[in-house]
């Protein structure tokens, strides 16, 4: 008899269904919306189980700003859709730069940058002496290494074919974009945001960006690699990094928060939960709710296991410029913990 039910289930559930008009229309709208979106290209340095999760928040920041420098900073990094970086920009955290170098008929200028312990951003403009090199180009990127004044390699965006010079211990992942590319003038903007899920980026004092190659990808996916040497100094005006720390309201919570520090671009949180969670998706939907009801989600996280505990580190787009006094970290299926500003 079970066999009959089994057969009936298979027949009933596997027959082709006509999708109703309401659903059909919604699906077609969804596809159109995807066609009009540009997915951010992400690179993940996967040493400790990094997950690149969705970046979406419901925070709304007002842009009642008139200062030109601040507006330029916002415009440079607004395409990343990171509300934390936008708030940092509104508060003047992004620094202008005019460091440049020319080689192989390509001039590269570092136009602006920012960094705190959690995130760093670089905005470049490239100018090709021969604009025809950009005809039928889909995007342009660079192979570069960012080295600080102590000689430590902080970030290396280098293909597998070249060896790394550092130990790749600072950056968890990075996103790269060309907000615009003009094949008539031969100019292209290239922006990068890199982050450390463990809040480990050291200060960029006396840092240098060593660019080794320019990668020009055609619309058909072909790559033209232009090797050269472009060294750009990062004139980091040491700004006092405003920070704010939060601690657990209830110390016996199932989520044990060991660190919650807000920097200008984001809140870095590290916490442990009992047991080993092999399925990383358990943490993909974690979020923080502030005392005004705004929700914040992560852009990714790092998972480690130790002493029968799962330890998660992540950045949320809540900044040290936020005036929230209380936050609630929520993980579906595990629990929640209230965090109070010190």
């Amino acid at each position, binding site marked *: 008899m079970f066999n009959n039910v089994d057969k*009936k*289930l298979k027949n*009933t559930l596997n027959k082709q*269904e006509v999708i109703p008009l309401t659903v059909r229309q919604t*699906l077609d709208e969804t596809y159109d919306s995807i*066609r009009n979106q540009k997915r951010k290209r992400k690179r993940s340095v996967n040493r400790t189980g990094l997950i*690149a999760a969705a970046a979406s928040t419901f925070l709304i920041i007002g842009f009642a700003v008139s200062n030109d420098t601040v507006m330029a900073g916002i415009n440079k990094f607004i395409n990343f859709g990171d509300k934390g970086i936008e708030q940092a920009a509104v508060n003047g955290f992004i620094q202008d730069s005019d460091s440049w170098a020319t080689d192989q008929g390509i001039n590269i200028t570092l136009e602006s940058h920012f960094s705190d312990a959690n995130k760093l951003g670089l905005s470049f403009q490239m100018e090709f002496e021969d604009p025809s090199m950009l005809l039928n180009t889909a995007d342009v990127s660079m192979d570069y290494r960012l080295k600080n004044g102590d000689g430590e390699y902080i970030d290396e965006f280098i293909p597998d074919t070249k060896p790394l010079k550092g130990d790749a211990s600072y950056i968890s992942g990075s996103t790269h974009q060309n907000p615009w590319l003009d094949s008539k003038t031969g100019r292209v903007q290239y922006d990068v945001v890199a982050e450390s899920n463990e809040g480990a980026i050291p200060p960029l004092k006396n840092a240098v960006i060593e660019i080794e190659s320019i990668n020009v990808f055609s619309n058909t996916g072909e790559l033209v690699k232009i090797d050269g040497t472009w060294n750009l100094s990062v004139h980091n005006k040491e700004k006092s990094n405003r920070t704010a720390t939060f601690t657990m309201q209830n110390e016996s919570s199932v989520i044990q928060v060991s660190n919650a520090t807000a920097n200008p671009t984001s809140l870095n949180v590290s916490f442990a939960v009992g047991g080993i969670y092999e399925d990383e998706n358990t943490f993909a939907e974690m979020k923080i709710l502030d005392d005004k009801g705004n929700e914040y989600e992560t852009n*990714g996280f790092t998972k480690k296991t130790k002493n029968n505990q799962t330890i998660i580190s992540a950045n949320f787009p809540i900044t040290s410029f936020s005036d929230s006094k209380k936050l609630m970290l929520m993980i579906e299926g595990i629990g929640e913990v209230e965090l109070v500003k010190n």
Partner: protein
Amino acid sequence: MANVNALVKKAKKGDNEAFIELIKQYEQVLYKVAKNLLRNDEDVADAMQDAILSAFEKLDSLRNPAYFNTWICKILINKCNSILNKNKNTFEELDAEKVQGHTAALNVKMEFQDELNALNPDYKTAIVLYYIVGMNTKEIAECLKEPEGTIKSRLSRAKSILKSNHLKEEGTMGYVQ
């Protein structure tokens, strides 16, 4: 039909059409999952839209393209559960016609699909994942974060209920004039 692995790789590199083609391959499965877990077409449309957009945003988190099917179904199930939870908190005013309709429905022979719909949500989810998505009990256990034994027991209980309803139907049918 294009290869799923190749489409996932293309989509990860930013080819949006590849992502759409990928989803279209699973449109039927996704629709059937949502339809079996939710009550009306509007909710089904919302759940599918949310799941597809979420998958588009989170594609980088999918490590092994071979698991695309189970990965997106899992996202969809989370969306369906959110809608079900939201609906739980909504009070629906009972109207006389509806009540009469329900009573009348109890008096007629239930179709197999109705019997499925009447199952406890936990049983229904297990059935949907097993028969529509094609997951095995271990995969369902991982997806729902439940022990495999619990999933096996839910599938067995669900089939028992369907079997007993089926027997009742057959018995009733003999007496219907």
